């Protein structure tokens, strides 16, 4: 039984863990109590370390129409796919900043973001950093295998929303319309040999308590069925983006904090990720309460770090390329507006003040060498 069937049974399915998770979310216990337990568990399993990574957007071309995403096909935005030299230039910048773990991110486009392109990107980056992960359109297991062979160790795929009706309403066209295909992606990725599997829900699309319960159920399922994979969970909250989609649901900072603590208490050994979607103050506050992976100084537009690819920018409207315009000084359109704009060095400095040892390298070429 894949997670698809498992999710269908979720309302009746009562595991002790999910019951505990519900209880922790309910507000029955004071937040400070949860925070203390979450902090202690995180310290015990991860020590005082914080792993750092950087997203590297290689393309914002996309064939999907998703109402909430800046890269949606029908948004008239500036798009580009970086060539390999440009990808390398962006990566070299990140290496200079200290990063040794890079997350390749791309829209879903069979022509511009092909499997062979991704494979080449991985090979180029692996010459520079030991750890390369991917956040790209879902694939079959057999399509993932060459990417693992090329040296990618992580695969991140957010379900966006675990609520099928909301999912259908938001994903208007393209391969991403297929709810089950996306939902089973983490299992296919684990079968292909990815060492790390990252999941998440885009908070703001559907009622958040149901959403995170499904996310917790998914986590529990993957820990049992993909036992050799290191599972990480992210909690992206909707941010302003092209298309100006308005969140239907708002999760307060208090609720957000309770959610992270509940996850840490229920899953003491998984990785919890905090991106630059959240403001500096909140990231600093949440860091000791369960977070173990953070990005820093991030850009969500291809070429955002060095300006690479600017000469190839083009505007598309509903999938059609418009005549090239003078775009001197313009960058490709970002997926969403980041909130924590601190450069990596400032984040590292702040983490040290908070009592963390920032860890850049936590993987080696010799592991899973091809």
């Amino acid at each position, binding site marked *: 039984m894949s997670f698809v069937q498992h999710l269908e049974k979720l309302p009746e399915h009562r595991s002790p863990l999910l019951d505990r998770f519900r209880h922790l979310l309910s507000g029955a216990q004071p937040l400070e109590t949860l925070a203390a337990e979450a902090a202690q568990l995180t310290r*015990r399993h991860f020590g*005082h370390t914080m792993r750092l990574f950087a997203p590297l957007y290689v393309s914002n071309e996309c064939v999907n129409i998703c109402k909430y995403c800046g890269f949606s096909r029908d948004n008239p935005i500036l798009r580009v796919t970086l060539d390999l030299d440009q990808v390398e230039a962006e990566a070299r910048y990140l290496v200079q900043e200290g990063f040794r773990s890079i997350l390749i991110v791309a829209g879903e486009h069979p022509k511009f973001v092909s499997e062979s392109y991704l494979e080449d990107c991985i090979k180029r980056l692996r010459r520079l950093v030991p750890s390369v992960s991917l956040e790209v359109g879902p694939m079959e297991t057999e399509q993932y295998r060459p990417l693992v062979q090329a040296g990618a160790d992580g695969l991140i795929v957010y379900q966006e929303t675990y609520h099928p009706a909301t999912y259908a309403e938001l994903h208007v066209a393209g391969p991403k319309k297929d709810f089950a295909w996306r939902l089973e992606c983490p299992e296919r990725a684990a079968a292909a040999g990815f060492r790390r599997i990252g999941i998440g829900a885009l908070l703001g699309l559907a009622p958040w308590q149901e959403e995170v319960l499904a996310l917790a159920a998914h986590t529990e399922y993957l820990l049992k069925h993909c036992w050799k*994979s290191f599972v990480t969970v992210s909690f992206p909250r909707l941010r302003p983006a092209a298309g100006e989609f308005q969140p239907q649901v708002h999760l307060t900072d208090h609720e957000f904090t309770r959610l992270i603590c509940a996850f840490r208490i229920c899953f003491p050994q998984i990785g919890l990720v905090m991106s630059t979607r959240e403001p500096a103050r909140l990231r600093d506050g949440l860091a000791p309460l369960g977070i173990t992976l953070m990005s820093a100084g991030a850009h969500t537009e291809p070429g955002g770090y060095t300006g690479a690819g600017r000469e190839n920018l083009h505007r598309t409207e509903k999938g059609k390329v418009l005549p090239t315009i003078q775009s001197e000084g313009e960058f490709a359109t970002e997926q969403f507006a980041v909130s924590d704009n601190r450069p990596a060095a400032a984040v590292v400095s702040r983490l040290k003040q908070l009592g963390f*040892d920032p860890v*850049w*390298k936590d993987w*080696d070429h*010799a592991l*899973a060498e091809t």
Partner: protein
Amino acid sequence: MSSILSLPNQPWEIAGRKFQSRLFVGTGKFASPLDMKNALTASGCELVTVALRRADLSGREDPSADILSHLDKEKYLLVPNTSGAMNAEEAVRLARLAAAAGLPKWIKLEIHPDPRYLLPDPIETLKATEILVREGFTILPYINADPVLAKRLEEAGAAVVMPLGSPIGSNRGLETRGQLQIIIEQATVPVIIDAGLGSPAHAAEALELGASAVLVNTAIAIAKDPSRMAVSFAAAVEAGRAAYEMGLPQPRAHASATSPLTGFLDR
């Protein structure tokens, strides 16, 4: 290295190398390199383990992977561990890389396909031990408290065995006590109890059972004062060993008079 408690202390050996201290310390999870260095000094340890996945083995002095530069190779025997390896092939590759980078040919084998509980794979650990012993490495294999596996590893040439007290980070002490006693009873190599030792009392108990040493990482690294905790562990290890050498009376289930059945012989 001076004794914390000023107790008489005979040196002991692993693979011909002598040690005074029976406390080994891991270098992960500390809040800073300075905290780590201070705690290691305070512990009096002579052997430290370090995760190769954190280290720069390229020789290019990568500033983003400088953990080795904070460890004094003159003061400590640096024993790399292969954490992150899922199978023998990966562990062997890491070990060879470490040796090529100039690290001592001592390896703590940590092979855990399960990244959640980090429990060691017995089959892959045995395979890796066989290969690396043939290549001249001194192997310290981390294992579950499996007495048969411990003997198989001895036969394969492991220099010690390192059975866990309880899973890494669990702080549950000697959960595997019964099995550990069998391992210690049957071992012809030093037994170093590793993982799950959350308090100095756990470490003392390990030494009282007859373990040759313990390895502690989490409990020291995450303590409010890691240096002070390191001293506490060192004292506990010395106390436990001294008690073991003096011989501890066996616990009894019931109270008993001194000589109920044979007392007549003294009348």
